[in-house]
């Protein structure tokens, strides 16, 4: 890889001149569409809530408009069904074929859509404008190629999956969020480290290492994150590229209909409603992962939020923050299980960072990955994990943590191994954690 390519894959080298005034989102989309016929591949980096799905739908309609067949690749069945719904809603005249594995039962909302055919084989779909499936399903398809493909969540897709399906298309648009969690494996992949086709790297990394001249665009505006969150997330997790919020200060409101009783939980919710962030800090103590007190605090915050009749006001109007608009996030599955067992309404989503990727809620409650720990591992410091947890909300994010994270970071030993030929990934987890912690300190209750 050339030095320029290396620099671009990870952001500009320190000392380079500041970024030129960024083009607006419409301009970016225009440039992306214009680049499609010019290059074999086009990459679009999309920070949290920057209209990735909107771009996918627009690009799909644009390509379908040329009369050429298109395949769309997403990573999970849920994402596929979501995209099918959006495509049909925006472009009802398009015909869409949804490929699925034999065991999969498509939800009614998909089956009832006009213009959508569901099948397990391409032959069963007729000849639709667009065929859409998960990467896993696409890997079983053979005997036909498509002139165009759109690969969604391409940074969460492992490159070995891309290898299995890249023969199906001539050109492709790759869309994804570089700041979220990297793909992983249950086996040790050191033997492939440094290879340009390392199967454990993301599809985009491998694509760009072999094709360093492909254009990379960036969506510059987050429509999800409010003005209180975009700068925090941008600074901590996208230090070289940056993005801004689509709404200005005060345009997103969170109001609590009933008064509080002055408890820490109430005060945390009030701080979050006022500023978009709150840190509910519990006394400093080393605890097990399923820290009972922290789990209780998370559950109480969620229950209290519902009790107090929170109302979210935004450019989309006012609506109550119902249970399905609230998510609780944690690092480990046992923490998720403990929180679920604490008696939350079942409509509230409780999940790990891995599974919250790509999702959006009005309010999120986060059990900090470093809470109660004495030492951090690479898993706990991984910047993508905190990025996912801190960027799912449209209005406010409440973080629950034991005091002492600052000391943990200060005492953290640095001895990460270095593999030759592997581009360094930024931001560093330590720095990202420190940056978020600095911000949260101003919202501590």
């Amino acid at each position, binding site marked *: 890889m050339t030095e320029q390519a290396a620099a671009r894959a990870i952001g500009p080298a320190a000392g380079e001149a500041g970024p030129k005034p960024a083009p607006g989102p419409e301009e970016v989309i225009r440039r992306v569409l214009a680049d499609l016929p010019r290059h074999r591949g086009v990459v679009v980096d999309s920070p949290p809530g920057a209209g990735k799905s909107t771009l996918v739908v627009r690009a799909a309609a644009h390509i379908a408009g040329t009369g050429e067949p298109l395949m769309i690749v997403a990573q999970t069945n849920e994402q596929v069904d979501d995209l099918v719904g959006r495509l049909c809603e925006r472009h009802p005249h398009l015909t869409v074929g949804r490929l699925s594995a034999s065991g999969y039962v498509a939800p009614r909302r998909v089956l009832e859509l006009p213009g959508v055919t569901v099948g397990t084989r391409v032959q069963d779909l007729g000849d639709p404008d667009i065929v859409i499936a998960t990467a896993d399903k696409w890997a079983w398809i053979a005997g036909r190629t498509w002139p165009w493909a759109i690969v969604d969540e391409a940074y969460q897709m492992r490159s070995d999956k891309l290898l299995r399906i890249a023969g199906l298309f001539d050109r492709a648009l790759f869309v994804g969020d570089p700041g979220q969690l990297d793909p992983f494996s249950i086996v040790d992949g050191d*033997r492939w480290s440094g290879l340009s086709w390392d199967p454990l790297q993301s599809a985009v990394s491998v694509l760009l290492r072999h094709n360093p001249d492909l254009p990379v665009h960036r969506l510059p505006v987050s429509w999800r994150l409010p003005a209180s969150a975009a700068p925090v997330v941008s600074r901590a997790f996208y230090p070289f590229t940056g993005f801004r919020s689509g709404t200005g200060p005060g345009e997103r409101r969170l109001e609590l209909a009933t008064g509080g009783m002055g408890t820490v939980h109430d005060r945390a919710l009030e701080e979050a409603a006022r500023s978009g962030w709150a840190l509910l800090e519990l006394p400093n103590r080393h605890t097990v992962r399923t820290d009972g007190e922290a789990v209780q605090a998370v559950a109480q915050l969620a229950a209290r939020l519902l009790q107090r009749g929170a109302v979210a006001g935004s450019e989309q109007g006012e609506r109550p923050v119902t249970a399905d608009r609230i998510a609780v996030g944690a690092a480990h599955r046992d923490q998720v299980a403990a929180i679920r067992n604490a008696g939350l309404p079942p409509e509230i989503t409780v999940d790990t960072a891995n599974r919250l990727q790509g999702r959006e809620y009005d309010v999120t409650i986060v059990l900090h990955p470093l809470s109660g720990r004495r030492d951090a591992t690479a898993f706990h410091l991984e910047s993508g994990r905190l990025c996912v947890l801190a960027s799912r909300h449209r209005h406010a994010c409440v973080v629950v943590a034991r005091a002492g994270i600052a000391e943990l970071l200060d005492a953290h030993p640095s001895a990460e191994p270095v593999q030759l030929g592997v581009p360094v990934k930024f931001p560093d987890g330590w720095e990202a954690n420190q940056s978020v912690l600095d911000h949260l300190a101003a919202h501590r209750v």
Partner: protein
Amino acid sequence: MSLLTSLARLRALDEGIAQPIATVRHCHLSARPMVFVPLKLSGEAAAPLAAVLGTDRDRPHLLVVTQPRNRDLRFAWAAELAGVLLPYVEGFLSDTETVERRNADPYERALDAPQLLVPNTAGIAFTRLLGRSTRFRRPDGPYPVPETVPLLGRWLTYFGERAAFPGSSLMLAATEELGRHWASGQSGLEDANLAALLGWITEGPADDAEDPLIWPPAGPATDPGFDAEVLAPAIESGSAERITEALRTQLEPTWRLMWQAVDLLAGLPEGASVAQRWEQDRGSFSGMAAQIAEGAPPQARRDGAVAAASRLARMERAQAAYEVQRAYDDPLVMAEYRLTGEAFAGEVVETDPAHAEGEGRSRKLRPLVVVKTDDPVRLAPGTALGTPQRRGQGAELVSAGDGLVTIKITKGMGRGRTPTPGAVPEVGERVCYSSLTDDFQGSATLPEAEATPWTHGGPPSAYVPTDDDAQEEWS
């Protein structure tokens, strides 16, 4: 590592003796393993110094590079090593069985396979490097080596790579296998010292294990003090005998420890799935032998894009299967999942063997079983379950709470209106169910290497062994 293992370590530390963390042996142990203890010259990547090896504890072969700076002697050493290893390996090729395959021709699988045992993971890494440094050599041309050396290199490479394959027993590191079965009262890092780990398992900890004068390191790195005070003067003296004797003192203690490790592992009963994994090892070994026989080129330096993805898929599948099999074979491993709520065990308190769902033609037999358990169950209704007691059977969690779990059996109870006798556990039987199941999706096919797509660099240029490879300096 789980809290269960951590507790065992705490107990070991308190009682001054290692504690079992497995009730069965999870690796295959050959009746005639090849114990191999190599030493390398400090500061070099893979320059051999000496090795002791053999299948008979009373008749070790000691191979020494009697002048470690002499390159030709290193190749002579490699030829000597080949002289011991190759006959051992090839000795397993004559007795075979014919294996029928779906969609492919039948093939011959060796009835038994070789097994290499080294002291530690560094020994595996060294074996792989030794393979890398010898497999491209040629018996002809400008830098000829003995004929057996490149063949040795291919086998060493094979064993070294196979050691990274989850659940394989073709090449094992003693510290790893002991550590899988016993928890010492020291840290995992310290467990990499074979003498120290064995001390914990047999007699209790002793600081002697860290004293290189009492227990020389188990290699491949030598003790720097030995290098300075014994080996360097011996090399200076130019006396082959003195060098040989010096290295013998460094190898003999480890040789004894290795056989002690073999005995300890042999004392454990073999896990139920071990034979199945060994069968895969035998198949893999036969495949490798067939490749060599067919004149395939030596293994590539690095995996190409397709080879890498293919190997990763096989390794992930093997890893997942290995984890499930270990838990199913060994209640103490399953206990780790019970502790985290992903499995539960207890006594059957109620059954409804004739329970069915649906009507008419879609009526399905779904026997219900209620289990009383003390385990903290953290499984959601609808979770698919498997059980070590009836391996072919599938079940599903119906509800859990207050120490009672209701499950319904969904697979493997017969097709009639009533279950096959024995398929539904009786009241009073102890059972264990877990969300760990080995229902793996096969992975989709990969493109041929020649069809590597543009996203991955396009088709690779075919590998042609060059003279460069063959004459790479071995300083």
